[in-house]
C-alpha cells in the first residue's frame, strides 16, 4: 500500500469519525442542556432522539441557500469553507491513541501543537470574512467582536500551553502525551489548565463567551445572513473546534490515551474518547450554567486577568524547570 493511499484511508476514517462525533456532540449538547433545564430534549426522531442529527442534516441540506444582494458574493460563499476546512485540518495532526503499529494519527508532526494553533488561528478569518461580506450590520458587528475576542484570548491561550511545552520539552503531541505517563500535566499546570479551558471557550465562541453570535443582541452575529448548507458549515466548524480544543486539553493536560489507575487493559483510544467526552461535557455544563458576559468585561478579563496570569504561570514554570534543571 503506497503511503498516499494509506493517508487517504486514514483521513477518510478520521473524517468519518470526526463528523459523526460532531453530529452526536450536537445531540449530546441538546440533551444535556435539556436535562439541566428540566426538559427531555430531542426525543422524537428515532429512539431517544438518536436520529435527530440526521434529521437536522437533512433539514440543513434542503433549506434554501440565500445570498444577500449587498453581500460580497465570492467571499460570502468562501467564508464558511474557510471556517470548516481549518477546523477539520487540525485533525490531521491529532493523535488519538498509540498502539504497537504506531501512532493513531494521520500525520505525526513533531511541531504538532504549533500546527494546531496556527490552523485554529486561521479559522477566525472564516468568521471575520463571513461577517464582513454579508453586507449587513449585525454580521459585521459579530465579525468585529470575533476578531477582537480571538486576538485577546489567543495570546493567553498560547501562553498557558507553553508551560506544558516547557514541562514536556517537546512540541510533538505524542511526545507531550508520553511525558505524562507518570503525572498528568493538569496537576503541575493547574493554573495553565484553567486558563486554557477559559480561553478555549472564548476561542470557540461558546457560551458564556459567545458574543460573536449573541442571538439576543446580534441576531446570530456573523452568520445572521447564512442559511442552508453554508450555515451548516459554520455549525460544523464550531463543533469541530470544540472537539479540537477538547482533544488538545486531553492531550496536554489529561495525559492523552494514558490509562487511569493503571487500567491498561482498556485500550488507549477508549481512554482518549472518555477524556475528550468529559471535557466536552464541561463545555456544555458551562453553557447551561453561566450567562453571557458583557463585551467590555470579556475584553478586560482577557487582557487584565488571563494574560498576566498566563505570563505568571509561564514564568513560574520556567523558573521551576530551570531551578530543577
Amino acid at each position, binding site marked *: 500500500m503506497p503511503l498516499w493511499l494509506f493517508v487517504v484511508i486514514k483521513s477518510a476514517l478520521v473524517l468519518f469519525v470526526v463528523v459523526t462525533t460532531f453530529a452526536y456532540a450536537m445531540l449530546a449538547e441538546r440533551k*444535556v442542556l*435539556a*436535562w*439541566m*433545564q*428540566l*426538559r*427531555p430534549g430531542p426525543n422524537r426522531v428515532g429512539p431517544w432522539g438518536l436520529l435527530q442529527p440526521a434529521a437536522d442534516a437533512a433539514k440543513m441540506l434542503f433549506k434554501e441557500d440565500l445570498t444577500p444582494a449587498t453581500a460580497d458574493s465570492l467571499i460570502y460563499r468562501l467564508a464558511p469553507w474557510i471556517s470548516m476546512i481549518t477546523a477539520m485540518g487540525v485533525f490531521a495532526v491529532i493523535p488519538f491513541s498509540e498502539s504497537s503499529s504506531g501512532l493513531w494519527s494521520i500525520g505525526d508532526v513533531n511541531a504538532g501543537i504549533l500546527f494546531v494553533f496556527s490552523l485554529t488561528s486561521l479559522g477566525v478569518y472564516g468568521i471575520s470574512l463571513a461577517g464582513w461580506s454579508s453586507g449587513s450590520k449585525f454580521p459585521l458587528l459579530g465579525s468585529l467582536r470575533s476578531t477582537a475576542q480571538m486576538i485577546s484570548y489567543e495570546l493567553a491561550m498560547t501562553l498557558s500551553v507553553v508551560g506544558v511545552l516547557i514541562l514536556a520539552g517537546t512540541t510533538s503531541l505524542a511526545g507531550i502525551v508520553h511525558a505524562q505517563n507518570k503525572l498528568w500535566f493538569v496537576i503541575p499546570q493547574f493554573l495553565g489548565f484553567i486558563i486554557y479551558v477559559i480561553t478555549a471557550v472564548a476561542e470557540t465562541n461558546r457560551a458564556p463567551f459567545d458574543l460573536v453570535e449573541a442571538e439576543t443582541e446580534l441576531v446570530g452575529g456573523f452568520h445572521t445572513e447564512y442559511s442552508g448548507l453554508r450555515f451548516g458549515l459554520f455549525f460544523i466548524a464550531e463543533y469541530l473546534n470544540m472537539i479540537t480544543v477538547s482533544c488538545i486539553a486531553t492531550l496536554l493536560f489529561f495525559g492523552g490515551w494514558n490509562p487511569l489507575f493503571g487500567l491498561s487493559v482498556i485500550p488507549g483510544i477508549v481512554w482518549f474518547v472518555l477524556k475528550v467526552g468529559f471535557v466536552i461535557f464541561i463545555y456544555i*455544563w458551562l453553557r*447551561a*450554567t*453561566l450567562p453571557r458576559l458583557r463585551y467590555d468585561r470579556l475584553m478586560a478579563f482577557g487582557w487584565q486577568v488571563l494574560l498576566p496570569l498566563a505570563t505568571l504561570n509561564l514564568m513560574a514554570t520556567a523558573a521551576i524547570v530551570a531551578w530543577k534543571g
Partner: protein
Amino acid sequence: MRTFIGAIVSLAQGFYTTFQFFFQKKPTIAYPSIKKQHAPRFHGLHELRRYADGKERCIGCELCAIACPANAITVIGAENTPEDRRSPGERYAARYEIDELRCIFCGLCEEACPTDAIVLTPRFEMSDYRRGSFIYAKDRLLVPPEAGVGTSPDERPNGIPSDLGSVLAQKSTVDIASGYSATWRGELLKTDRKGLAG
C-alpha cells in the same frame, strides 16, 4: 480576596444547580400523545352557536368586534329575507371573521355577545402552515347544523362542561413514565405510582 472566594463559591453553586437538575425527573408532558388537562373555563378556539331549530344565533350586531381589544373580529351584517332566513331577527352576519393570530383569547367577545352566539370553546389545537388559514370565517366558526347547537357558556361557569369532563376522566393527564401529573393550574404533583396503578 473574600469577593474572589465568594465568586468561586457562587460559581460552584451555579454549577451544582445545573448539575443537580441534570439528574432530576423531567415534568414535561409528551404533548400530542398525552394531553394536558385545561381549566374548566379555558378560552380556546371560537365557535358560533345555533338555536335548537338550527337558526344562527349571531345577529351581526358587531358588539364583539367593538369589544375586541385586539381588533381581531370583522362582522358585516345583512338583512334576513323571508326566503333566506338565517337568524331569528331581522339581521344576520353575512360575514363573520376572526383572525385567530390576532386574537388574545380574552373572551370579551363572549361577554359582549347579546345572544350568546360567540363562545370560546376549549379547543386550542389550530396550528397551520399558512397565516391566511388563521382567519376563521363562518364556514369554520359556525357549528355545522348536524352538530347541534354548540357549547353554551352557561354550561361551564363553575363546573366542567360535558366534553371537558371526558377529558378529565382520562387518566392520560398523568404521565405514568415520569410519575408526575400536571393539573390545569400548572402545579406539579408527585404521584404515587402504586396509587395510580390501583
